[in-house]
C-alpha cells in the first residue's frame, strides 16, 4: 500500500510528467489557453493513459517477453496505443455519447502525446507489476492534468498583461511554464521520493 501511495505521489507531484520530465509539452502548450479545454484534454489523457499502461504492460509481459521479442517494444507499443485510442473513440461514441462529445476532438491527438508512450515505457523500465503500472499511468495522467489546469489559469491571466513586444506569445508562455516548474521543484524530496 505504501509503495502505491509513493508511486502515485511521485508521478503527480515530485516527478510531474510535464514539468520535470518534459513529456507531453505539445498538448501542454496547445490546449492550455482556456481552462475548459484543459479539463477536456486532461480527462482524455487520464483515461487513455490508465488503459494504455494496463494494455502495454500485459502485451509486454505475456507476449513480447516470453517470445524474446522485446526489441519490438517501441513499434508494438505505439501501434497498441494508436489502436487503443481508436477503440476508445468507437466505444465512447457508441455507449457514452456525452463523454465522447466532451473528449471528442482531444482523443485523436493523444496518439502522438509522448506522455502516454513515456508512461508505458517507464512501466517496463522500472519493472512495475500490473497494479503498479495502472497506478503509475493513472497518477501520471492526473499529474499532467494538474499541470495543464494550473497553467491554463495562468495563461488566462497573462492575456491581460502588458508584455514586451518580443516576449508576446510563445516566449512569455515558456517563461510562465518555467515559474510553474520552479514551484513543482519544491516537491523534491517530499516523503523521501
Amino acid at each position, binding site marked *: 500500500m505504501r509503495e502505491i501511495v509513493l508511486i502515485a505521489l511521485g508521478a503527480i507531484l515530485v516527478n510531474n510528467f510535464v*514539468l*520535470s*520530465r*518534459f*513529456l*507531453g*509539452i*505539445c498538448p501542454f*502548450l496547445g490546449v492550455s489557453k482556456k481552462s475548459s479545454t484543459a479539463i477536456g484534454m486532461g480527462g482524455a489523457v487520464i483515461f487513455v493513459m490508465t488503459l494504455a499502461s494496463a494494455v502495454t504492460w500485459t502485451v509486454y509481459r505475456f507476449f513480447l517477453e516470453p517470445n524474446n521479442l522485446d*526489441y*519490438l*517494444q*517501441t*513499434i508494438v*507499443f*505505439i*501501434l497498441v496505443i*494508436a489502436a487503443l485510442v481508436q477503440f476508445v473513440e468507437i466505444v465512447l461514441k457508441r455507449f457514452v455519447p456525452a463523454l465522447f462529445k466532451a473528449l471528442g476532438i482531444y482523443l485523436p491527438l493523444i*496518439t*502522438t*502525446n*509522448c506522455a502516454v*508512450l*513515456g508512461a508505458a*515505457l*517507464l512501466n517496463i*523500465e522500472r519493472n512495475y507489476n500490473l497494479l503498479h503500472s495502472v497506478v503509475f499511468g493513472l497518477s501520471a495522467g492526473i499529474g499532467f492534468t494538474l499541470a495543464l489546469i494550473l497553467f491554463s489559469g495562468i495563461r488566462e491571466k497573462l*492575456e*491581460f*498583461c*502588458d508584455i514586451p*513586444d*518580443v*516576449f*508576446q*506569445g*510563445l*516566449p*512569455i*508562455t*515558456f*517563461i510562465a*511554464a*518555467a*515559474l510553474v*516548474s*520552479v514551484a513543482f*521543484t519544491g516537491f523534491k524530496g517530499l516523503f523521501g521520493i
Partner: protein
Amino acid sequence: MAKPSSKAFSVLKNGIMKENPVLKMVLGMCPSLAVTTMARNGIGMGIAATFVLTGSNIVISFIRKIVPDKVRIPVFITVIAGFTTIVQMLLNAYLPDVYKELGIYIPLIVVNCIILARAEMFASKNGVGLSILDALGMGGGFTIALLIIGSVREILGAGTWMGLTLTKDIIDPAAIMILPPGGFLVFGFIIAVINKISVLKVRNKEISSGCGMNCEGCAGQSGENGGDAQ
C-alpha cells in the same frame, strides 16, 4: 544544371534557417527540453533523430504511390517506429554511454512530431532525392537548435561546455539552468531573441514593400491596444 541544384540547396537550407523545426515551428519540444542539460546530449539526440528522419523520409518517399491515402498515417508511424528501433539498438551496441544518458527519450523519437510532420508534408509528396535533403536540412536544424539550447544551459548551469571547464571556477554556476525550470526559461528567451531578430528583418523589408506579412506582430499589437482600452 544550375536550377535543380539551387532548388536542392534551398530545400536543405529551409530546414536549418527558415523553417527550423524547433526554433521557428516549435515542434518536437519534449526532447528539445528534456535532453539539453548538456550540449553533448543535444548533439546525440539531434543525430539520432536525423538518422530516423532520413531513413523514414527515404522509405516513405519510395512507397508514397503504393500506400492508400486512408491508412497512410499508421503506415508512416510504423516506418518511423522501425527506424527508431534500429537507432535504439545501434546506440545500445556502439555508444552505451549516450544510450544511458538519453534513456527513454530514444524510443520517444517515434512520437517526435517533426518526423511525422516531414513525412506527411514533404516525403509523401516529393521524390527520394529531395526527401533526403529535406531530412538532412530538418535534422540539421533540429541538431543546431538542440546544440544552442544545450550550450546555453550547460554554460550557465554547470560552467562547462563539451567537457571543457569555462566559467565554473570564476562564478558559481546557476544550477537551476540544468534543472527542468531552466529548460523552459532558456527556451523562452531564445525564442524572444529570434522574434527580435525577425522583427528587425521585417522592419527593413517593410520600407520597400509595405506590409511585412508579420501577422503575429499585428495580432499582438491589436491585442495590446484592446488591453489598454479596458
